[in-house]
């Protein structure tokens, strides 16, 4: 894996010196902040209104009514912004002809793809880190359960890996960043809504569609339920698209 870290460092610099990453992080925080505010406001009014009803008060749970829907919402926002964060990964190199430098260096294609992947993971971690402002807020004024939160953010990370891998793959297909973003957006949306067609399908197909659907695997984790199958699903999607992207880059030599 020689050259991996070199590529990663350059990738980070690419993110830090382009306005796109800053704008997207800002937009992400703005929108997720708005979601959080709304959920918290609803929770607050409910607690006030029902404070006389002891049964109902017992049911009020900040994890269930604030953080679980919040994490679900955040995962959708991630789906919307990750195509824009990953579209440049390889398309920009092709457009700027810098892929000729990378591909004529004694660095394996796997290291090039890996380096770019790690660079994008840094952005994902930054986003998740910023989200901790909202977690901190919960811990300051209430007592949320930490385990569902941990699993929720962990799941978000796994899902983000898959988003990045898909975006990286579509970026290798073209030198036009908009095309790359549109393609990965299409794939992500399709994987999201796949389970919606499961209703009328045959039992086998229903199970398959549900299994392949992106958000089916993010139902349990924010609730504090850990199924090994969920991270396995995200990691296998990630690996699949990373390998595909690597093959596309290598195939360029033969086309």
């Amino acid at each position, binding site marked *: 894996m020689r050259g991996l870290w070199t590529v990663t460092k350059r990738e980070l610099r690419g993110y830090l010196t382009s306005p796109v990453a800053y704008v997207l992080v800002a937009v992400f925080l703005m929108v997720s902040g708005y979601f959080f505010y709304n959920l918290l406001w609803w929770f607050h009014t409910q607690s006030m209104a029902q404070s006389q009803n002891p049964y109902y008060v017992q049911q009020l749970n900040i994890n269930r009514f604030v953080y679980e829907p919040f994490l679900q919402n955040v995962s959708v926002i991630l789906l919307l912004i990750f195509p824009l964060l990953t579209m440049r990964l390889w398309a920009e190199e092709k457009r700027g002809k810098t892929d000729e430098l*990378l591909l004529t260096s004694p660095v394996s294609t796997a290291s090039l793809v890996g380096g770019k992947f790690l660079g994008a993971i840094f952005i994902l971690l930054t986003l998740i880190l910023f989200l901790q402002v909202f977690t901190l807020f919960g811990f300051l004024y209430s007592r949320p359960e930490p385990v569902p939160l941990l699993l929720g953010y962990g799941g978000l990370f796994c899902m983000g890996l898959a988003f990045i891998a898909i975006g990286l793959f579509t970026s290798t297909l073209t030198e036009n960043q908009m095309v790359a973003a549109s393609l990965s957006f299409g794939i992500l949306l399709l994987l999201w809504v796949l389970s919606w067609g499961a209703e009328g399908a045959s039992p086998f197909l229903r199970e398959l569609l549900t299994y392949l659907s992106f958000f089916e695997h993010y139902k349990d984790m924010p609730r504090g339920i850990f199924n090994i199958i969920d991270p396995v699903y995200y990691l296998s999607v990630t690996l699949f698209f990373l390998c595909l992207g690597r093959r596309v880059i290598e195939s360029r030599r033969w086309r």
Partner: protein
Amino acid sequence: MIDVQNLSRFYGEKAAVKGVSFSVAPVSFSVAPGVVWGFLGPNGAGKTTTMRMITGYIAPSEGSVRVAGFDVVSQSESVKERIGYLPETPPLYDEMTVGEYLGFAASLRGVKGKNLKSRVGYAMERTGLKGVAGSLIRNLSKGYRQRVGIAQALVHNPPVLILDEPTVGLDPAQIVEIRELIRSLKGEHTVILSTHILSEVTQVCDGAAIINEGTLYASGTLEEIEKCFSGPPGLYIESDPLPSPAELMRVEGISGVRREGAGLHVAFGDEEAGIKALNLWMRREERLLKEWRPIRLTLEEVYLRALSRERGVKE
């Protein structure tokens, strides 16, 4: 050092669009260590494609390339370590400074630690970039960008440098500078540079390969090429009085005669016998020789012939 054998490249899809199959085929030439080698041909001759195959950016469809004994396809990493490559468009990152960029290029090629700093410094010194080490590449002029491209190619001290049209698009003063720079690299590196300008080859290179429409027309040292393509053996003669072409054609050993200016261009089938026969004939007929010189093609003529032959075939 670099051994290209029977190299071909087919662009299946492209050919389907154009209706012609394009290939760099078959090209064979060898380059000795420590020389500057020109790769000469008009635009679209297949120079870039051949260079890309040598650097391993694209794979050959047929044939093989060996650099320092390593095969480009099966031992690509060993080859890539030994090559510094300046593509047609310098592969620069606009948002990096010159120093950062060269450091990145060096570490991609496995240069580490203390060595890295000194190599970057060396490359900047050789290419005259010391003054702009902290400037963003975005803000550099075309000439400086080209220099950064060359610096990037030699930053890891590779034995082989491959430069694709290093002087294209530069102003005359910059062209002279870059040529000086390339000449100064001779001896330390084997340099292959491609160009469509003949004078660049005669000024900078020790040898050349002439390529057109994907086929090799000539290769060797400059003298070898000139010598090799000077035939068919012939003489230019002027005499008083000048014989008519028909008269000379009757002389044994002479295969062709045509008027050229104030004299005649005589071609021989068998050079030695023909010259002897012509000499004897001139003496017998009492023609006073005013000029007598062998005809050799200059490199320029070889080049032009390579171009026109291909055009002739097409028509």
